[in-house]
């Protein structure tokens, strides 16, 4: 087997995550999908580092995790406060951008 | 480095505009006098330019030239220079502005008193001076980009003059008046902006092709044959330029903004539009369309001549059909602009000299007629022809000046417009007899609308409202008198003007025809 398959898998997961972001209305689930996309990227990075035979890819993946953690923290906090104010976690309810 | 005379002619009014605008609200009259002073100073400078301008046979085409680098990256230069045509039009502009200012002396007085922060008067006169500065500079610019900037920039003050200071004599409620006014202003702006946009594209295209914006350089390149412009490219660029100028001029069917603008604006502003600003369009046709794209100009001539012909007849017929004095004058102007454009593109010495003279004479005659009409309207408070009648009885001097204005509009021999109109007709007839003959119908229609206007307003039984109408005051007489004198003088002795204009026309035609004689030879060799 060729480790390229890992990349295929990664892109598949990524696409699935993206689709999820688009079709789900629950902010939390949307967030999960984002996490899924991030993980897909990590997988790809790890696979790359294996292909190139150096650890830089893993380092980047590592940083990605950190950033993801930070993002989740802030994001979920936002969701919570949003829910407090509007009693709903639907991303569609926050449609104030409408002209 | 000699004294930058041309720059001065534009800087003085610009400074005047700023100074006028800075006058505090209470000192309204001071602002008026200040504006008048600066406009007169500009007139003096224009006179100096005219004197310094050398009409000798050996004189070079552009004189009093100035040249400084401006936007080096695009080779945009601040290049000025005047030829005879420019001198004539600068003279016209500098001459008319003082009259416009005096005529509009009270037009911008604030209606509601007490509001001390509100300073319409200052703004009004400052804007007029600003327009003057831009127009004069655009007559002097020999750099296409510089010209374009001015061509567009002068729309802004005009917009505010039209939209901000409407004619108080208006049938209908104030809101209605305001709505129509802003409609007219926006229409004016949009029409000219669209034209300008297309011109901008053409300007850039020209830079791509020629690699410079300088008229003189392009002329040299053309002479030395370095400039290789594909025929289609040249035609497209020509159309781009011509469209903008045709909107400004205005040429049928791009004319509909003019009646609204002139109808809604105060009479002095209407004069500013038709007698000064629109001339930039026709002037640019001569200097840029013919100078830059001679081949394309020749190619487009037939269509343009037909359009001009339509303008002449169409404008005159619509003038006959108008109920509103100022709209009538506007449509008459459209007809006259048809004559000017026809003269330009007839491509004969008589035609183009006539067209240039026409620009000047039309400026003066329209100013005379329109300003008197403005005085009339301000007395009765209505623009509808039907509201007048028998004014001649009550205000003979007003009627007399109005009659002379009308006669100038119908180009009566002995008054200036006749000379130019006949030259245009002869010039056109020499090359395109049919068009010339059809255009001659214009003189009948001209007589029709002028006399109908005079008859319906001035003659007939005296109406109650007009019975007590006061005659022209001294201020108004000071505006109209000199204009009429000028009309007569230029009608009897136009030689000074033709002497200035002819060499420039010669140069312009040599752009198109090279050294050969542009005029068709008469059948019988003259003795």
């Amino acid at each position, binding site marked *: 087997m060729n480790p390229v398959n890992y990349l295929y898998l990664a892109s598949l997961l990524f*696409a699935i995550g993206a*689709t999820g972001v688009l079709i789900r209305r629950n902010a939390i689930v949307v967030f999960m999908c984002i996490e*899924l996309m991030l993980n897909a990227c990590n997988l790809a990075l790890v696979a790359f580092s294996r292909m190139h035979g150096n650890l830089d890819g893993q380092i980047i993946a590592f940083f990605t995790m950190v950033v993801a*953690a930070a993002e989740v923290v802030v994001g979920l906090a936002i969701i919570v406060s949003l829910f407090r104010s509007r009693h709903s976690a639907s991303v569609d309810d926050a449609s104030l951008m409408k002209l | 480095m000699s004294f930058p005379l041309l720059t001065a002619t534009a800087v003085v009014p610009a400074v005047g505009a700023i100074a006028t605008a800075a006058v505090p609200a209470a000192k309204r009259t001071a602002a008026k006098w200040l504006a008048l002073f600066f406009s007169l100073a500009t007139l003096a400078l224009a006179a100096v330019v005219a004197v310094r301008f050398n009409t000798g046979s050996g004189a070079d085409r552009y004189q009093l030239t100035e040249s400084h680098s401006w936007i080096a990256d695009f080779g945009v230069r601040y290049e000025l220079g005047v030829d005879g045509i420019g001198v004539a039009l600068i003279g016209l502009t500098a001459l008319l502005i003082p009259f416009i200012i005096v005529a509009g002396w009270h037009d911008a007085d604030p209606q509601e008193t007490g509001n001390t922060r509100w300073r319409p008067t200052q703004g009004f006169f400052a804007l007029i001076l600003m327009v003057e500065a831009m127009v004069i500079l655009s007559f002097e610019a020999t750099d296409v980009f510089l010209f374009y900037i001015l061509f567009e920039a002068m729309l802004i003050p005009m917009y505010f003059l039209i939209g901000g200071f409407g004619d108080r004599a208006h049938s209908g409620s104030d809101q209605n008046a305001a709505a129509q006014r802003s409609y007219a202003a926006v229409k004016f702006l949009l029409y000219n902006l669209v034209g300008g946009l297309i011109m901008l594209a053409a300007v850039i295209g020209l830079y791509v092709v020629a690699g410079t914006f300088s008229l003189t350089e392009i002329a040299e390149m053309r002479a030395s044959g370095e400039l290789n412009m594909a025929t289609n490219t040249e035609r497209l660029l020509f159309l781009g330029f011509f469209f903008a100028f045709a909107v400004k001029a205005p040429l049928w069917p791009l004319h509909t903004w003019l009646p609204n603008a002139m109808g809604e604006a105060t009479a002095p502003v209407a004069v500013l539009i038709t007698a000064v600003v629109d001339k930039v369009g026709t002037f640019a046709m001569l200097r840029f369309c013919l100078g830059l794209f001679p081949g394309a100009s020749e190619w487009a001539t037939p269509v343009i001549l037909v359009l001009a012909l339509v303008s002449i007849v169409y404008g005159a017929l619509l003038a006959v059909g108008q109920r509103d004095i100022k709209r009538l004058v506007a449509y008459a102007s459209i007809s006259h602009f048809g004559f000017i454009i026809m003269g330009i593109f007839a491509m004969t010495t008589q035609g183009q000299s006539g067209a240039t003279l026409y620009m000047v004479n039309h400026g003066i005659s329209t100013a005379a007629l329109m300003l008197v009409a403005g005085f009339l309207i301000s007395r009765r408070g209505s623009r509808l022809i039907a509201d007048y009648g028998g004014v001649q009885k009550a205000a003979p001097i007003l009627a007399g000046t109005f009659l002379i204005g009308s006669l100038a509009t119908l180009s009566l021999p002995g008054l200036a417009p006749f000379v130019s109109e006949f030259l245009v007709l002869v010039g056109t007839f020499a090359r395109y007899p049919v068009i010339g003959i059809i255009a001659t119908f214009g003189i009948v229609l001209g007589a029709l609308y002028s006399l109908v206007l005079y008859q319906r307003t001035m003659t007939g039984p005296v109406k109650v409202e007009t019975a007590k109408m006061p005659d022209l005051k001294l201020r108004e007489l000071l505006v109209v008198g000199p204009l009429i004198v000028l009309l007569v003088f230029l009608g009897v002795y136009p030689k000074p003007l033709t002497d200035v204009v002819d060499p420039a026309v010669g140069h312009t035609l040599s752009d198109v025809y090279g050294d050969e004689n542009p005029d068709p030879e008469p059948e019988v060799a003259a003795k």
Partner: protein
Amino acid sequence: MSALASQAVTDLAAYTTSTGEAVQFWVLGTVAVIGALCTILMKKAVHSALCLAGTMIILAVFYLANGAYFLGIVQVVVYTGAIMMLFLFVVMLVGVTAADSLKETIKGQRWLALLCGLGFAVLLVGGIGNAAITEFNGLGTANAGGNVEGLAALIFTKYVFAFEITGALLITAAVGAMVLTHRERTERAKTQRELAEQRVREGKHLPPLPAPGVYARHNAVDIAGLLPDGTPSELTVMKTLRDRGQIRDVSTEALRDLAALEQRSEERLGRGQEAAK
């Protein structure tokens, strides 16, 4: 564990991987994809979260298989351990809302989304296949001194600034989260008396709300009590359930019972008349 790892290291530098890994990939890969799909298709957020957690664990395994031991562990600890739990907490906090339903509200959104997703996937796969990466050199040399040491060396030399900055980022995030969620009480808490007076002033429902199911011979909290005319009263069910729309309506059967009761009494009365004769 470490033995297995060293085993893996030896056969890493190759042009193809071991059949064991292949099998592992195909089996777990399928599961991962299914998990991902479940994540976006499950109706309840909780289920989505669990599916996601599963997928992540599988990814952790893949990391290990790819010689990224450190990341594999971190994945399990940080993601599955910390982040997903955080998710679950928030899900509990927010509770089930109408947003959960998969019914699409924006016209054409779903089809567009699917189209884009699919197209994107196809493009990526195509792109990768197009890149045609055949040979690869494994991490044998890089991981020679141990994976963690290798990473540490890089982090503290080459990527030290990025590392510090991520640290700063984390702190900021933590502070931010606190700021966002923390609510300072600005005014004194109202006493019960004050609250009661306010209720009276506003003309609200004064006595305590009726217990659920009281009049309806039911004793479940999610069943609305019936008013004397047999219609259910929303008031009797607690607010959270109401918000979630989790009210079981039994009014119909209650009314049926009532009808039956009246019929029976009819019969009795009828008998009574006969007796009178």
